[in-house]
Each structure stands twice: as structure tokens, then as C-alpha cells.
């Protein structure tokens, strides 16, 4: 009894916490959303729409496919031109299972969606590592292959008249167009809501980070390949659902309704409305439908084949949007609205300044015999390095001496030809994510912040690393654990920002100065909770006052038990912060010790420092 009561109490506490959170996050936009959804649901019962219902339901399904495409294009920046094919795969799988195999509606539907998911996974795997231009071309070819496959094999596609489906019934109930409309609106609302919920949270932020700076995102432990494959598959699955349901609605699967021109239309809808806003694709599709109506009227007057003018007008509309800056209609409208209304300041509790805790299990990092050649150029030649907790180790040397190559080998950005890197007795030889999880994280030489995210969101990309309940499904369902994880991540991120001295978490990263952007990279790295921190030229571009602050920060991090490696050209700064120095020349370690010891070394003076006095 008491156990049951405990569970009951716990559930009640969680529920009231959820209600509290929901009320805190409730705004007039939420109310508006709910009202719009309710209005769309009751519209067929109130308005005289019965004769238009099939068209409306078909539009809603197409909008669902467009929203699915926004997952790939907007969230992850994958320019997929294959959505028409995925829509068609869903549709024809459903049609073939229903007509040829004689399956009932529901099992066919599940199988059709599973088939589309399978093709989506294969396509995602096949294009995952390509540059985006190649992704666009290969998905475009996929759209054509699908169309040619159907037109070349009338045996599969039913030829010119298509495949005619038996009437759709679910549990003895015959589905009407209105039923389809209600199902479509509900699915569309869920897809839009999921996009809205996921985009600004950990899974969405990781994708946005990889979209803008793939290498930097991977360096902070974002599982880039897996996340992109997941979002591409989700995009295909949504198209499969829309395709299978459309074919049940119109009762016929017709090859000419899928393929390249549908892919084009959906892609245009997403760009036209705004790929980064959840409702963008729906707005874009509405505009295109207005175009097609206008085009049909004009074309009818001139006696043109249907569809011809539609594509032309769609093309011109898209060019207009791209010419006006390319963000899409909805973002433009939002920008205009925001410029008219004063910004609402959201008070944010300031975290205690020293949130970044001491390193719990400080461990030295030992690199032995690191070697890397690029062709005949030996970039690293048997380099040993030891980074000790609570000490700052500076890596110096002339340009091209292998400093950055060494850092890349330590963080896993490149695989050395020989040599080992160990922390805590375990050898690190995986990609960056595995090393970040072990507590080894580096920052990039060039400023590589995520320009379209705010400072806080940048830091959250790092803070999302160790969260266990931050998958896309938990995030969307807002489970208690996901919400607790989110609060923890936000505390970590704010703490890291506070520590590096960035006090406006809501500023877009693109508005920060070059030095502030370097600090932001440092904050994102700190938010991953590292034991070993590797910084590539953190002082570059800083003023004297900024360097004072940076030196203080490095001392503070050292005091917390971090092992630090700093690659630096500014020797005055090195003298202030470094406990130990290693000098590289032509990929070889030519000296190490304190700066004074190194400075008096003949080889060092010969190689590099002769030109600049050290101490």
C-alpha cells in the first residue's frame, strides 16, 4: 500500500510541477495556437465545406509532407530534393499492399510507413557524409529514379490510370474526406508542435550547431552523423505517412502525382514560407496554392496545359523571396512585427557566479609518440606531451611547426599515423565525441561559434553532452526527466558563460566581438564538463584588458583542477599563464620545461626565438 501511495504522491508532485512549468511558459501565442487548432478542427462541422473537403484534406496531407521536409532543411540544413519520392513511396507501398496483397488499411499503412523509413535510412546513410550540394543532386536523382521506375513499369504503377484502391474502412467505419481532414490536421499540428518544441532544445540545438559549423559541433560532442541521419529519416517518415494517407483519400495511386515536380513544390514551400519556423512550410504551401489558382485561371484563358504556368509562377515567387534576402515570408513577417513592438525582457535568474565545479576526478593526459604526415610533409614527428591537472601547459613554435595538428590529434579531429593518447589509463582513439565524454575537449583556432544561436544556446550545445534524457522523443513529450535535464543544462551553460565573463546570454553569437566569440567557444567547451581543456590561440585579437581577464580566467580554471593546454603566439601572454612550455619545430619537440629553461635552450633560440626576446 505504502509503495503505491509513494508512487501516487510522486506522480502528483510531477504533475503539479508540469502544470507549473506549463503555466510559466504560457503566453498569448500559445492561446492563439490552441484557438487556431480548435477552429481548424471544428471548421468542417460549422462551415459549408463538404464539397471542398477532399481538396482541403489533400492540402493538409501535402502540408504535412512539407513540414516533414522542414525537419531536414530547416533544422539540419540538408537540402533534400527527394521529398516527392518519399511521398510517392508511402503512397505506392500502401496502394500495392492494398490492391495486390489485399491487406486491410491499418497493416498496409504501418508497412508503408516502415518501407518509407527504410528507404529514408538508406538514403540518409548514402548521402550522410556528402557536401550539401551533392546531397541536393543525389536526392534530386532519387526523385527522378522513382518517377522513371513507375512510368517504365506500368505493371507496378498501374499505368496511365494508376492503381485504384478498395474503399477505405477502419474497424467497419468507412472513412470520409472529413475524417481524413481531421486526421490530417491533428498530425500536422503534432508535426508542427514537435518542430517548435525540439528546435530550441538540446536535439535541435545540436543540429543547428552542426548545420552552421559541423566540425565545431562535433568537437563539442554532438553526435553529428547520427543526429542528421535521424532527422533525415524523420523527414522521410512524415512524407511516408502523408503519402499513404493521401492515397487512401483519393483512392487512386497515380505515378504523375509524385516525383521531381512534387519535390520541387515542397522544397519551394519550405523556403518560401521559412524553413526555420515551424509554420513556415504551411504558409509557403498556402501561397503556392494561391499561385496555382491564379495560374489555372490565366492558363485556362490562354488554353495552356494545366500546371505549366503554375510552375512558372512558383519559380518567380521563389526568386522574389530569395532576392529579398531569402529568409522566407514568415520570418520576414516576424521581423517586421518585432521591429514594431518593444522587446519583452524575460527576467532570468542569475546563476551563482561560480557554478562550474572543481574537476571531480582530475587525470593527466599523456600523449606518446604522436606522428602524422601529409604526403611527404611530416607535420608531427614522435611528439610526447603530458598535461597535468592544475597546470597550464603552453605549446609554442613558429608557424607550421605542428601545434594545431597536435591539438587536432589530441581531440580526435584527425587520426595520427602513430602514437597514443591516454587519460585515466584508457587510450583515446575514437572520434571527438568519445573524447569529450572522457573529459578532453578543445576549441578551434578560427572563431567557430554557431552564429545563428544565442550565446546561451551556444553554451547549451556543450552542456547537452552528458544529459541522458534529452532524446528527441523525451524532449517533445516534456517528460519530467527531460525537463530536469534541461534545467541542469541551462544552469551549466549559464554558469560557464558567467565564468568567462559573458553576461548577456540572449545576445546572438554573431553580434559578439571576435574576442567575445573566443570566450564563447571557451564557455561552450567548459559547459561539457571537461578535465582536460585544449585552447588554440585563445588570446588572438584580445585587447590588453581582455588579456588580463583571460589570464585570470585561465588561472581560475587551473585552480579548479583542469589540465590546460594553450597554443599561443603571444609570448608575453604565455609568460603570464604557462607553468610549462613545449616548443615544436617542424613537427618535432625541441625543448620543454619552464619558460626560462626553454628560453635559454640553444636549439630554441636557433630555431625560433632568436628573433624575439623571451624573458
Amino acid at each position: 500500500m505504502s509503495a503505491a501511495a509513494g508512487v501516487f504522491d510522486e506522480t502528483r508532485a510531477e504533475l503539479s510541477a508540469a502544470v507549473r512549468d506549463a503555466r510559466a511558459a504560457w503566453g498569448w501565442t500559445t492561446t492563439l495556437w490552441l484557438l487556431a487548432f480548435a477552429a481548424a478542427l471544428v471548421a468542417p462541422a460549422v462551415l459549408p465545406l463538404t464539397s471542398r473537403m477532399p481538396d482541403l484534406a489533400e492540402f493538409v496531407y501535402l502540408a504535412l509532407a512539407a513540414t516533414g521536409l522542414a525537419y531536414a532543411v530547416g533544422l539540419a540544413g540538408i537540402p533534400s530534393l527527394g521529398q516527392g519520392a518519399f511521398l510517392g513511396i508511402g503512397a505506392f507501398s500502401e496502394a500495392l499492399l492494398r490492391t495486390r496483397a489485399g491487406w486491410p488499411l491499418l497493416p498496409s499503412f504501418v508497412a508503408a510507413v516502415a518501407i518509407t523509413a527504410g528507404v529514408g535510412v538508406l538514403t540518409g546513410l548514402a548521402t550522410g557524409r556528402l557536401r550539401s550540394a551533392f546531397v541536393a543532386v543525389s536526392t534530386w536523382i532519387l526523385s527522378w529514379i522513382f518517377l522513371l521506375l513507375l512510368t517504365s513499369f506500368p505493371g507496378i504503377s498501374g499505368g496511365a490510370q494508376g492503381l485504384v484502391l478498395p474503399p477505405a474502412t477502419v474497424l467497419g467505419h468507412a472513412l470520409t474526406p472529413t475524417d481524413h481532414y481531421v486526421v490530417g490536421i491533428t498530425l500536422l499540428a503534432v508535426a508542427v508542435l514537435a518542430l517548435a518544441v525540439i528546435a530550441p532544445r538540446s536535439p535541435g540545438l545540436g543540429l543547428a550547431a552542426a548545420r552552421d559549423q559541423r566540425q565545431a559541433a562535433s568537437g563539442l560532442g554532438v553526435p553529428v552523423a547520427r543526429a542528421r541521419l535521424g532527422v533525415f529519416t524523420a523527414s522521410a517518415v512524415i512524407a511516408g505517412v502523408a503519402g499513404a494517407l493521401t492515397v487512401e483519400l483519393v483512392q487512386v495511386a497515380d505515378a504523375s502525382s509524385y516525383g521531381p515536380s512534387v519535390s520541387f513544390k515542397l522544397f519551394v514551400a519550405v523556403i518560401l514560407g521559412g524553413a526555420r519556423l515551424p509554420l513556415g512550410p504551411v504558409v509557403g504551401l498556402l501561397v503556392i496554392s494561391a499561385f496555382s489558382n491564379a495560374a489555372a485561371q490565366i492558363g485556362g484563358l490562354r488554353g495552356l496545359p494545366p500546371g505549366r504556368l503554375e510552375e512558372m509562377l512558383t519559380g518567380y515567387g521563389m526568386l522574389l523571396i530569395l532576392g529579398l534576402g531569402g529568409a522566407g515570408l514568415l520570418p520576414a513577417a516576424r521581423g517586421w512585427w518585432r521591429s514594431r513592438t518593444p522587446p519583452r525582457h524575460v527576467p532570468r535568474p542569475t546563476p551563482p557566479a561560480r557554478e562550474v565545479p572543481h574537476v571531480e576526478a582530475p587525470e593527466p593526459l599523456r600523449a606518446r609518440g604522436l606522428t602524422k604526415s601529409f604526403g611527404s610533409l611530416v607535420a608531427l614527428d614522435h611528439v610526447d606531451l603530458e598535461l597535468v591537472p592544475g597546470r597550464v601547459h603552453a605549446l609554442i613554435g613558429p608557424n607550421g611547426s605542428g601545434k594545431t595538428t597536435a591539438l587536432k590529434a589530441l581531440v580526435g579531429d584527425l587520426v595520427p599515423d602513430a602514437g597514443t593518447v591516454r587519460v585515466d589509463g584508457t587510450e583515446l582513439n575514437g572520434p571527438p565525441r568519445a573524447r569529450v565524454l572522457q573529459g578532453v575537449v578543445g576549441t578551434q583556432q578560427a572563431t567557430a561559434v554557431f552564429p545563428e544561436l544565442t550565446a546561451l544556446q551556444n553554451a547549451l550545445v556543450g552542456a547537452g553532452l552528458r544529459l541522458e534524457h534529452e532524446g528527441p522523443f523525451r524532449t517533445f513529450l516534456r517528460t519530467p526527466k527531460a525537463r530536469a535535464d534541461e534545467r541542469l543544462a541551462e544552469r551549466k551553460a549559464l554558469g560557464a558563460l558567467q565564468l568567462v565573463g559573458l553576461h548577456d546570454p540572449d545576445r546572438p553569437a554573431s553580434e559578439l566581438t571576435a574576442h567575445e566569440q573566443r570566450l564563447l567557444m571557451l564557455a561552450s567547451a567548459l559547459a561539457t564538463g571537461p578535465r582536460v581543456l585544449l585552447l588554440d590561440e585563445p588570446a588572438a585579437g584580445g585587447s590588453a584588458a581582455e588579456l588580463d581577464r583571460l589570464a585570470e580566467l585561465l588561472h581560475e580554471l587551473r585552480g579548479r583542477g583542469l589540465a590546460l593546454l594553450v597554443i599561443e603566439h603571444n609570448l608575453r601572454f604565455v609568460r603570464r599563464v604557462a607553468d610549462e612550455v613545449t616548443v615544436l619545430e617542424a613537427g618535432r619537440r625541441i625543448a620543454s620545461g619552464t619558460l626560462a629553461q626553454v628560453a635559454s635552450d640553444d636549439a630554441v633560440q636557433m630555431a625560433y626565438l632568436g628573433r624575439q626576446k623571451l624573458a
Partner: protein
Amino acid sequence: MSSSGSTVGWVASTLAIAFALRGMIGAVFTRPAYVFPDPFHFDNVGRNGVVTIAGASVQVRSFFVIGLAAALAALAGWTLERTRRGRALQAISSDPEAARFVGLPVETLVALAFGLVGGLAALAAVAAAPSAPFTVDSGALLGLKGLVAALIVRFGSPWAAFAAGLGVGLAEAAIDNLRIGGFGLGPQYGELIPLGIAVGVIAYRSLRAEPVARTA
């Protein structure tokens, strides 16, 4: 700035232009298909423009088309490798930011490249048009095959793309017509298989490639 973001923009604009132009052509040329007369009267050569080589009947036109294509590929290759503007275009292709940084007029050169591509496509269309009835959609499929050929050689040199294009065409013709021991695939596979091979090549390269994030 963001590489993928700008690619999305490029993809969107080129497709938009393509569809806008195609729609415009369709609005002006309203017949289902057009037959173009041959400006070079190849039908006077051989037997009604057909010669027999090793038992095979070949249109004389095809030699002209192949020759013209080879000449254009050579010209494009020479332009890219040997002229200042061509090398500047290659620089832009490998790193647009760096090209801009060293003072190349990137926008002008990209516009020039599009102009050249358009001109080459127009010549190809004029050369190919008399072979068969031309429809508004002929261009899309022809362009797609060109894209496939260029993709197979990774948008490398024009010569390689020319060779790949010939290969795609040969494969298509062979699949359409060849029957070995009573077994032949038939014309319905002719357009599909080259596309399928292209997708296979892309997938193979993608899976073999180092993850983008790990290349220096």
C-alpha cells in the same frame, strides 16, 4: 558563413530559375512536341543520312554530335585550365571565401560560369534537337543525364565528364537494345540503370569517405 545555408539558397535559386524558364517556354510553345529541321543536311550523306559500319547502321549526324561535344569539352577544359578566368573559377570552386579574400570578383565570375554553362547547354540542345521530336520536358531529362555524368566524375575535368557522358549514353543504348542469349533488359531499364549506377557511386563514395567533421 554557413556553408550548408548558402547551398540551400543556391539549390533553391537554380531550381526556381529552371522551373520559371521551363514554364515560360511551355507558355509560348504550346504544341506537345516540335520537330526541328537539320541545318546541316546530313541526310544527303550515305543512305538517307545513315551509313553502315561493321554491320551497324549509324546516323551520320551522331558523328557530328560526338565531334562537336568533344570539341566543346576540349574548349571548356582549356578555358578552365589555361585561362586566368578559368583558374579563378577553379579557385572559387575550392574555397569561395578565400577567393573573395584575394580579391577575385566572385559574383561576376559565377555569373560568367552560369553564362558559359547555359551557352554549352544551348549548343548541345541545338545539336541534339534534330535527332528526335523535342518537347518542353526533353531538356530536363537531358540535363539530368548530364548531371549524372558530371557527378560520376565528381564534377572533375570537362574531358572526364565528356567520357562519362558517352558512357552513360552507351550504357543506355546497350540496355535498350542488347540481347545476349535471348536475355535482354529492354528499353524500360535504359534510363533507370544509369541513374541507379550514379546513386550507387555516390553512396559508395559517401560511405567510404572520412566523416566531414574529421577532415582537417
